[in-house]
């Protein structure tokens, strides 16, 4: 009885805390089953149970879905995966259902099948199969969570994605700043750079196999590319000039970045594998923090050409530059949302630094956080929440998540202090 009551209780509490937020969709997650028999079948059922629990954990983190607590006794037979008993789940309050199977293959790999249903209408919403190495069951479960999330909400799921950030340890002269990467649920945490040189602003390539970042290894800040598998590094371009603020184009083929020439910082674009940089801005002063629109046609950036830092949008070839922020204060570090609807930014004023959003045409501006030590916002691939950096009163920096609807930011658990977060897109 308890397991039926608990989800409803949680929904009720969430409703009080955020009255304007729509109620979450209750989703049943019957354990993944297996067509295999004997010992092999038991092994597959064990993998399926682990995957089921991970799916529930994934979906519980979202604002939109509320998974029922899974029960090992609810195993379906293999044929029932494609013909679930909707009436049973309706009576438990579920409006959606996700389940599937794990099957062993003769080549030692596993097939994971995933099915999503509308319980009220009694029809299938989506299905997807994955062939994976047995050690990759977590990724398959994340994919299954993403399939359910997308089928129900229409937005990309955040489950099989990566977060890169700067891991900070020590203080003063002993402080180290190095690049770390982890899965968005905090697992598979690993350090990419050694920590012997200050590392800043990691920006993942769309396929998350490499990232661009700023390194002080050569004595002055310079954009470098590091392969996440081999950890091999190279400078983005062979230059002695200060270069910084890199970001990939949506197709991963190009990188926009800032480079100093004399006392002037302008925005340049270059192939991700190198080549001759093309200059996109020429205004005196600081043009920096460029970020592509998801279709690659436009770039948002910050510039102090008008006397104070403001947001500007231009075409990807540098033409048509125009200011979009006019509400007072200073605007910095913009990032275009994956769905193209919003631009997130850091606003700086005498009250400190806060995170806000604005439409690409300059309308609809509103603040999402109160600061005073917030900066470095990065969109979740769902375009529904934002990861950012917040300094506490002691000056220690951590990562937080805040929903677009507005809510109290939630801290992200890290092994140490962190800054400069970057959330990858959904990987195929």
């Amino acid at each position: 009885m308890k397991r039926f009551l608990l989800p409803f209780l949680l929904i009720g509490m969430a409703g009080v805390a955020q009255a304007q937020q729509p109620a979450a969709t209750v989703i049943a997650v019957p354990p993944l089953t297996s067509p295999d028999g004997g010992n092999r079948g038991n092994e597959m059922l064990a993998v399926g149970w682990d995957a089921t629990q991970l799916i529930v954990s994934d979906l519980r983190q979202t604002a939109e879905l509320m998974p029922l607590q899974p029960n090992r006794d609810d195993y379906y037979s293999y044929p029932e995966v494609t013909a679930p008993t909707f009436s049973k789940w309706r009576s438990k309050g579920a409006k959606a259902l996700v389940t599937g199977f794990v099957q062993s293959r003769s080549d030692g790999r596993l097939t994971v099948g995933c099915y999503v249903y509308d319980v009220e209408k009694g029809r299938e919403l989506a299905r997807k199969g994955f062939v994976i190495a047995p050690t990759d069951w977590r990724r398959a479960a994340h994919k299954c969570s993403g399939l359910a999330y997308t089928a129900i909400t229409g937005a990309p799921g955040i489950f099989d994605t990566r977060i890169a950030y700067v891991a900070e340890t020590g203080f003063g002269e002993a402080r180290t700043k190095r690049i770390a990467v982890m899965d968005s649920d905090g697992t598979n945490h690993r350090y990419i750079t050694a920590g012997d040189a200050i590392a800043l602003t990691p920006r993942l390539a769309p396929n998350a196999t490499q990232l661009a970042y700023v390194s002080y290894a050569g004595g002055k800040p310079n954009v470098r590319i590091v392969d996440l598998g081999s950890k091999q590094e190279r400078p983005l371009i062979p230059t002695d000039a200060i270069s910084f603020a890199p970001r990939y184009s949506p197709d991963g083929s190009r990188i926009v970045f800032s480079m100093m020439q004399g006392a002037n910082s302008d925005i340049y674009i270059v192939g991700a594998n190198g080549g001759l940089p093309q200059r996109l801005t020429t205004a005196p002063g600081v043009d920096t923090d460029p970020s592509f629109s998801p279709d690659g046609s436009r770039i948002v950036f910050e510039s102090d050409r008008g006397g104070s830092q403001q947001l500007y949008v231009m075409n990807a070839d540098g033409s048509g530059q125009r200011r979009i922020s006019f509400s007072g204060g200073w605007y910095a570090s913009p990032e275009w949302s994956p769905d193209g609807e919003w631009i997130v930014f850091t606003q700086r004023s005498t009250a400190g630094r806060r995170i806000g959003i604005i439409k690409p045409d300059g309308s609809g501006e509103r603040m999402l956080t109160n600061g005073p030590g917030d900066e470095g916002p990065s969109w979740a691939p769902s375009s529904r929440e934002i990861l950012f950096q917040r300094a506490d009163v002691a000056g220690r920096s951590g990562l937080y998540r805040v929903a677009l609807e507005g809510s109290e930011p939630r801290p992200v658990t890290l092994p140490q202090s962190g800054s400069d977060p970057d959330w990858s897109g959904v990987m195929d």
Partner: protein
Amino acid sequence: MRKTMIAVALALGTTAAQAQIHLPTIIPLSRGPQQPALQGIDALRAEFAAQSGGTTVYFGSESVILGAPARTVLAAQAAWLRRHPEIVVRIEGYGDTGDTRDHALAVGARRAEEARSYLLLLGIPAAQVSTTSWGKERPGLGRTVTVLVR
């Protein structure tokens, strides 16, 4: 107007100097006949500071424009550098700690570059002065520029 600061310090040698290691003696790069006698890096720094009227140059808050006091210090530093053409210096600029990461980095670079331009205007060879920026990566040194003798 609130003043912010550019500090100018010295170091000798190449990489050892950047690591702030105390060197009892140095072997200067052979450039010109009037090389200083063998000195400790700290002695050279002290001499630079004393004869330049300080190692710190001040900017207005959020500003990259050199004020009159800043130009006075830089002029004294230029005079010292003219007497020591064998000494190569690096100007390290710092942004404001309340700024955002990349803008602070750019502002630090601009401050360092403005200081360098003024030294060049006063006749210091370009090859004798390089620049870099620490942005807001060294909070204790926010709003400063450090010149390292290399």
